[in-house]
């Protein structure tokens, strides 16, 4: 479409303005995290640090107080890893098998079953928190990373099943039927025919689950004990724990530390992240 130079210039101006708006908070966080408190008090919010210091980062990672513990975010960052990695792997694998069974091994009621499972994508989790808290307590895994893994797997299954079901429904049924004629069974067909073509959807699903579980706060704050808190909960406590002077630089360093894993995933595999978001959107 023809456009004159003035409107072309205006177009780029608007787009760059929008990019600056998106980047500004991250820039301010980063520059604040590298400043001394004196410079924060005297300088400008958006200016780059005069004499960058990594002191706030060291403190946020290793010695800042979150609640009663003064060991920085490090132990909680590890909690998040211990919680996220198994929960992502389990929920993704089960979702893959579910999606496969629901598309290529249909039985009476399997479509209804799928619809019934989907409800799990829509409920506000508040409506299951109270019974789940009782259950975890009764089983003895409340206040532990195991409890959090369990909860994230259970409430992630609806999404992972949805991802794989929508992907596998595009795989021609003839392929599976031919393999069955040749005598291949349920798992053989999954392993030989479906798995080799599942790379992209595994990426989408793993990234989606990783982002969801790493970023979760609600389950973490309700079900975790002080030793099993994920990093999001610890970050919130760290920012709220004020002993004397408010250390904005440490707060910002801590926030970036908590955000780093998902940001890294986004930078490395942004394509799949976007696909997951749109796939999640199609569910509507």
């Amino acid at each position, binding site marked *: 479409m023809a456009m004159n130079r003035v409107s072309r210039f205006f177009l780029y101006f608007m*787009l760059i303005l929008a990019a600056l708006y998106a980047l500004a908070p991250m820039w301010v966080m980063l520059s604040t995290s590298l400043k001394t408190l004196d410079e924060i008090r005297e300088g400008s*919010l958006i200016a780059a640090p005069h004499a960058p210091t990594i002191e706030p980062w060291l403190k946020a990672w290793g010695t800042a107080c979150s609640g009663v513990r003064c060991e920085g975010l490090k132990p909680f960052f590890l909690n998040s890893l211990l919680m996220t990695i198994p929960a992502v792997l389990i929920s993704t694998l089960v979702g893959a098998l579910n999606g496969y069974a629901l598309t290529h091994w249909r039985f009476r009621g399997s479509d209804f079953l799928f619809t019934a499972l989907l409800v799990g994508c829509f409920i506000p989790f508040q409506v299951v928190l*109270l019974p789940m808290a009782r259950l975890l307590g009764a089983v003895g895994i409340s206040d532990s990373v195991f409890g959090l893994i369990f909860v994230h797997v259970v409430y992630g299954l609806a999404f992972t099943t949805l991802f794989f079901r929508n992907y596998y429904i595009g795989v021609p049924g003839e392929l599976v039927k031919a393999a069955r004629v040749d005598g291949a069974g349920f798992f053989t067909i999954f392993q030989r025919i479906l798995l080799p073509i599942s790379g992209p959807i595994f990426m989408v699903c793993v990234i989606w689950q990783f982002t969801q579980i790493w970023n979760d706060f609600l389950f973490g704050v309700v079900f975790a004990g002080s030793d099993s808190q994920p990093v999001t909960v610890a970050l919130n406590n760290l920012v709220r724990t004020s002993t004397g002077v408010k250390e904005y630089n440490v707060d910002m360093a801590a926030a970036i530390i908590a955000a780093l894993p998902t940001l890294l995933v986004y930078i490395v595999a*942004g394509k799949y992240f976007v696909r997951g978001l749109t796939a999640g959107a199609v569910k*509507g």
Partner: protein
Amino acid sequence: MAIPPSDRWLPKLVLSPTLAASLLFVYGFILITIALSFTESRLLPNWEWAGLERYDELFDNERFWVSAKNLAIFGSLFIGISLVVGLLMAILLDQKIRGEGFLRAIYLYPMALSFIVTGNAWKWLLNPGLGLERIVQQWGWTSFTFDWLVNPDRAIYTVVIAGVWQSSGFAMALFLAGLRGVDSEIIKAAQVDGASLPTIYRRIIIPSLRPVFFSVTLILAHIAIKSFDLVMALTGGGPGTSSDVPAIFMYQFSFTRGQLGVGAASAVMMLMTIVAVMVPLMYAEARSGRDR
């Protein structure tokens, strides 16, 4: 062909743990929560029937209405502004832009962040003493004040600001995908007929994005109703209870105030809100899908 007997029950066996988990932890737990909301439960579950007493308590609680009103304010502004900004950004990006992929990546990265991180970033940016207010003052507008974060009448709008920042890129991504799906023949035909670019957008392209509007609205509404972490990190529901939302109300009554029954009743209200928003939207979408 001979089907091995194991193939008859294996698929069902594979699905059974998920089915059991869904029946128990989704449907069962919803029923338990509903049941709890009709009991005498306070600090501990107490299964003595109380009828609608917990709901009476809930509806008599001023704080509940504050949180409901805040959800209405936050939800409508958050959804409305994200839709407009997202659509605008998508249209601007759809003009054969150099470096489109790069810009798109920048617009969308906030979506990878936790709401806790976003909340803390904006809490710092909006800090009345040291944040935006001071920058504008340093730029020469010395009387400028921006105290929304600590102003009970304005605090909920800071949640809108941070929420829109995080989610408008997401709306942009979905709208852009929708724009790429519009039939270019129709656009060419309209151009031949002499229609101007804004007219083409207003009359042809934007109306054809209807399904995208539905899905974006649906997801944003879902995020809004569940919003908990963003508010916790940004305002903590304060000053006082001025920026409370239902998710915070539910959390505090259930887990810090020992009012299980009232907490359960508020959770049920949240579920009903989601149903009330989702069902008409999905119905409308399904119907418009049939018309096409």
